[in-house]
């Protein structure tokens, strides 16, 4: 009999192996979709750390995704940096921004925390529009193919794009899995379940939350920076409130507080809209109904239900 811990590692390893193998079988259209899904799922993994594991409802994560997106995008378009440097700049921007916002937002709790994070994200969105001269506002800007080359490999090429997105997803998933299985992660779960008790066991709850916001913001920024580099488009819509709500939806659908949930939720939502928009123009109605259905019958999300009914060992 395999130990629960081993089963957990094998299950997540299996998912990564499956995603790797998938590129050899997928038709071109879905190939591109999956690359996009993996990048956005990495963003959702970052969000899940703060929402699903620590129990903090942030409504402003788009600012971290956008920090990575614009950090790397502008580094290339305005300063002509190489892809590697641009990536580092994007992640650093998200890291610094999450430290600043975290320090301020953690002075509040509950509904006030939601509003403060939402307001910071709106301020970020308006900042992007304000500096329209450089960011080109809503219209956004495109990064040339020639500028998106890492170690001689063009990131706009389909195969290398899939592989880059897959690498990003691997890094995010493995980091998240290692974190939630560590002592640090167990304290985060304790905070989510009973914050007061955790504090009264001698844990500095605010410090744990602060570190998690930085980690979450940095992973979100890494996803944003990768998005800019792989798909070559940087626009203000990624800083808008929709992109703060999306990761919340993906995580809720897939299963908050499960490592694989963000990917499952992202795939589900992406293809739900993709397929229903092929049938009707009222595709958001279809999406809405399915969401209501899931909220009623699977309130823990897909993987949350799987965990509570079948695989209790799943991280």
């Amino acid at each position: 009999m395999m130990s629960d811990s081993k089963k957990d590692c094998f299950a997540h390893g299996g998912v990564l192996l499956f995603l790797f193998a998938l590129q050899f079988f997928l038709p071109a259209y879905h190939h591109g979709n999956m690359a996009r899904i993996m990048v956005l799922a990495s963003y959702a993994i970052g969000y899940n750390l703060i929402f699903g594991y620590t129990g903090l409802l942030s409504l402003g994560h788009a600012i971290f995704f956008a920090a990575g997106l614009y950090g790397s995008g502008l580094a290339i378009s305005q300063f002509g940096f190489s892809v590697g440097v641009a990536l580092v700049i994007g992640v650093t921007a998200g890291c610094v921004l999450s430290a600043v916002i975290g320090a301020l937002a953690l002075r509040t709790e509950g509904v006030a925390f939601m509003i403060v994070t939402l307001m910071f994200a709106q301020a970020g969105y308006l900042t992007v529009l304000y500096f329209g001269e450089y960011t080109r506002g809503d219209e956004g800007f495109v990064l040339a193919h020639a500028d998106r080359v890492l170690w001689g490999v063009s990131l706009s090429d389909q195969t290398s794009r899939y592989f880059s997105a897959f690498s990003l997803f691997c890094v995010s998933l493995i980091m998240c899995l290692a974190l939630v299985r560590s002592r640090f992660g167990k304290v985060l779960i304790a905070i989510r379940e009973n914050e007061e008790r955790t504090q009264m066991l001698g844990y500095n709850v605010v410090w744990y939350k602060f570190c998690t916001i930085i980690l979450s913001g940095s992973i979100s920024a890494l996803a944003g920076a990768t998005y800019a580099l792989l798909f070559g488009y940087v626009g203000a819509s990624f800083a808008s409130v929709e992109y703060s709500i999306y990761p919340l939806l993906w995580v809720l659908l897939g299963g908050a507080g499960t490592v694989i949930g963000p990917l499952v939720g992202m795939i589900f939502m992406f293809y739900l809209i993709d397929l229903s928009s092929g049938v009707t123009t009222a595709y958001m109605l279809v999406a809405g109904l399915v969401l209501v259905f899931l909220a009623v019958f699977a309130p823990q999300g897909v993987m949350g239900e799987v965990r509570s009914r079948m695989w209790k060992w799943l991280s």
Partner: protein
Amino acid sequence: MAVLSLLSAQGLSIKFNGLSALSDVSFDVPKGQVRALIGPNGAGKTTLVGLLSGRLLPSSGTVHFDGQNVTNWPSHKRIVQGMGYTFQITSIFETLRVHENVALAARRHQMRDTLVNEVVEWALDRVGLAEYVNDIAGDLSYGHQRLLEIAMGLAQQPKLLILDEPTQGLTESDIEAFKALIDDLRGEVTVLLIEHNMDVVMQVADFVTVLESGQVLFEGVPSDVKASALVRAAYLGGANAKA
């Protein structure tokens, strides 16, 4: 005496919206003692414990613990310093397993997982919950949840264990086991016990502090408390009279 105090409160006062909940409360708990804190409902017992553990900050006065002035320390820092605290209203991690509940308490001071498991086993054994180690904490009976909370206190291996009404809702046999547990801990760890059950207080406490209307009314050994006309009038002779 003051030199040996593990916990010392001097002139503690706190006001809520101008209403004085505690005024000028001073008391010392020497190392190794089992101290009971009693008083009628609304006397300020839980408020006082809140001040001692750092969940509330006093309007004036000081708290010294283990030789340090901890008056302005946040609660988690006091707990790291060696205070263990159990809540009056059961506060556990209901969705997590019994083992994980206690392990969270042990992990803060034990670096190795094998040592954590030893502490968990030891603490659960002491409160008699060893057989429930793999159960979900929320599925335990109310009495067992109270005991789990005490196990979480023990697993912190504190110098001072603060128990806020630990026997509330326990069955007679659980209460007997609890009394035996406190006797067992006597001398090993200092205990501050907030308790309504007079039988428990009279049997396990070395020394009793009686609070009334936010002030210390009386202090003495259990037999003196029982004999005191003052306490009788304020507390035992009131609506709660049993003894």
